[in-house]
């Protein structure tokens, strides 16, 4: 049990590459914090600095109130699950899990007890004598988890632990990791570039972009109120549609009185767009904006359909429930509830919408 606190943490690699550009972050005790961001944004670097595998160029990292900057990984009381599992190929599953405990001088009976306990939790009981190469990908993943669990660490660190599994297994392991983390109540930091994983796992979601934090918050808060256009387009699949007011006006949207002063981008989630009938029921008193889109393709995926369309030179995705009864080509009038619009300024920062009272006046 521990909080992890990062204070203006920076990382400059030997070549002068600044991979992490001053990060402040506090992960509360027992929380699962997910770092998400595009490839190369410095997630792994940050995680490896917390683990002690990468030197910290400046700033401090505290685990449970203790500055760990100068400590070896083993002294930080953390456990890490690696992307390629990094199981010890020449050791049995049992020894893989017991190795760290032996190095700490844990008494034999206690090692035995802890390993059996972890094996039971992860359903590895019958595999303890096998070598890693005799295991399936999912089983290896479990062994890697087991190796972390037996150590009873203050913090779990995960670096894209599921990216080598197939989609189905990934979903399964995701649920399992979530459950395990809740049961054990161990503070965890989890790196992924899969935004679905990020949304479903996180207590605290941290969206990173080129070495900086874009936004920190509960996953649904981040989803509902993205702080920047980057977060808006990164979280959510398909991503949020980002259009200029000019685009919208050109296809018939009436934005008068809705547009905050410095807004230069209007964001609309694909599911907030829809046919006029569907959306007018949803919008209630808030009102709608409506505009025409030119249909490109309709992609039915079962429970819903994605309509890929254009507004002048900008592309727009509309998420329609079920089998959408819309034409395959031509124009379609779509609508979005006014209170579901997002606004961003020239720097891509979120701008608060015009208050409802002011709207009526305008």
């Amino acid at each position, binding site marked *: 049990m521990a909080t992890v606190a990062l204070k203006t943490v920076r990382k400059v690699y030997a070549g002068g590459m600044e991979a992490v550009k001053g990060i402040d972050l506090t992960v509360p005790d027992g929380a699962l914090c997910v770092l998400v961001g595009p490839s190369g944004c410095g997630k792994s670097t940050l995680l490896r600095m917390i683990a002690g595998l990468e030197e910290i160029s400046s700033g401090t990292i505290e685990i449970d109130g203790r500055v760990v900057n100068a400590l070896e*990984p*083993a002294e930080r009381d953390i456990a*890490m699950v690696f992307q390629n599992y*990094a199981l*010890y190929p020449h050791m049995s599953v049992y020894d893989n899990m017991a190795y*760290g405990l032996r190095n700490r001088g844990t008494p034999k009976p206690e090692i035995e007890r802890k390993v059996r306990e972890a094996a039971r939790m992860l359903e590895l009981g019958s595999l303890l004598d096998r070598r890693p190469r005799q295991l399936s990908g999912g089983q290896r993943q479990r062994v890697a988890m087991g*190796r972390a669990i037996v150590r009873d660490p203050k913090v779990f660190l995960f670096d894209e632990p599921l990216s080598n599994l197939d989609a189905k297994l990934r979903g399964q392991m995701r649920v399992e990791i979530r459950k395990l983390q809740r049961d054990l109540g161990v503070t965890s930091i989890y790196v992924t570039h899969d935004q679905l994983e990020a949304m479903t796992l996180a207590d605290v979601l941290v969206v990173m972009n080129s070495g900086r934090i874009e936004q920190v918050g509960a996953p649904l808060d981040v989803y509902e109120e993205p702080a920047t256009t980057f977060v808006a387009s990164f979280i959510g699949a398909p991503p949020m549609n980002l259009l200029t007011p000019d685009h919208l006006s050109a296809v018939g949207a009436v934005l008068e009185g809705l547009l905050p002063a410095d807004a230069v981008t209007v964001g609309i989630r694909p599911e907030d767009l829809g046919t006029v009938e569907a959306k007018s029921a949803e919008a209630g008193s808030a009102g709608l904006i409506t505009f025409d889109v030119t249909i490109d393709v309709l992609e039915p995926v079962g429970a819903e359909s994605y309509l890929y369309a254009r507004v002048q030179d900008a592309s727009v995705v509309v998420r329609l429930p079920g089998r959408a009864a819309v034409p395959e080509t031509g124009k379609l009038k779509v609508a979005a509830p006014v209170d579901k619009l997002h606004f961003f300024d020239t720097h891509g920062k979120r701008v608060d919408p015009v208050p409802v009272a002011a709207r009526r006046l305008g």
Partner: protein
Amino acid sequence: MPERTEAGTTSRSRRSPWVSHAVLIAGILIVVFPIYYTFVASTLSLQQILRPPLQLLPGSHFLDNYYEALFGGLGRVGGINVWTLLLNTSIVALSVAVGKIVISILSAYAIVFFRFPFRMTFFWVIFITLMLPVEVRILPTYKVMVDLGLIDTYTGLTLPLMASATATLLFRQFFMTIPGELLEAARVDGAGPWRFFFDFVLPLSKTNIAALFVILFIYGWTQYLWPLLVTNSNDMNTIIIALRKMISYADADTQWHLVMVTTIFAILPPVAVVVLMQRWFVKGLVETEK
């Protein structure tokens, strides 16, 4: 594999296994015949060997010859018996093989897993020594050994042969294939440099070590030039040197039957090492663990 050979042969001719076997057998006969004849000659008396025609079946002097070689003295080499020669050669071959492996695995470990100043310089220095075979540096080395008083010692026999750029490079190449994540996982599990070496690097390299041991043991066993230079007294001779000394220019002076016995003894240990270690490294090669 079996399916493949079958498919490959049926399309051609049914006789082809016979043809390839015949070729193989002929090849083996050519290679084995001299060794077989050495054995035959080691069971004959000197007169039988010198008198034509060549006898192709073992004679009746097996016990006499082997007894004389093992427990008598071999005339030419100053009354030293085969035991002493075998002991000397074993010490040389084992020290060279073990020494080379220990030194090269440690230097490769340092070069691959540690960051220290001039790391690459050291690597290139080791690499460059590849271009200097023993023969090239033999005179300066000899001078050094004389100055250190190491002539006629086991140290003098083995030390200059121990440094090995080849083995260092082989280990380096292998270590570079050990995934970085493995090292990091071990660090998180509290393994320092020594622990990592003994718990990970050594067990993972055991097939490489086995293969190298075989090669280096034979290399040490068959050393000729260097032992010839640094040994003066007969009881420090290796078996290869002794063999050379036993052969005189005049045929009649040479005790061919004992030469043959000594040759058989010179062949056996390398064969034994190959046979014993082969099981080891073939097994290792099959179940590659990485």
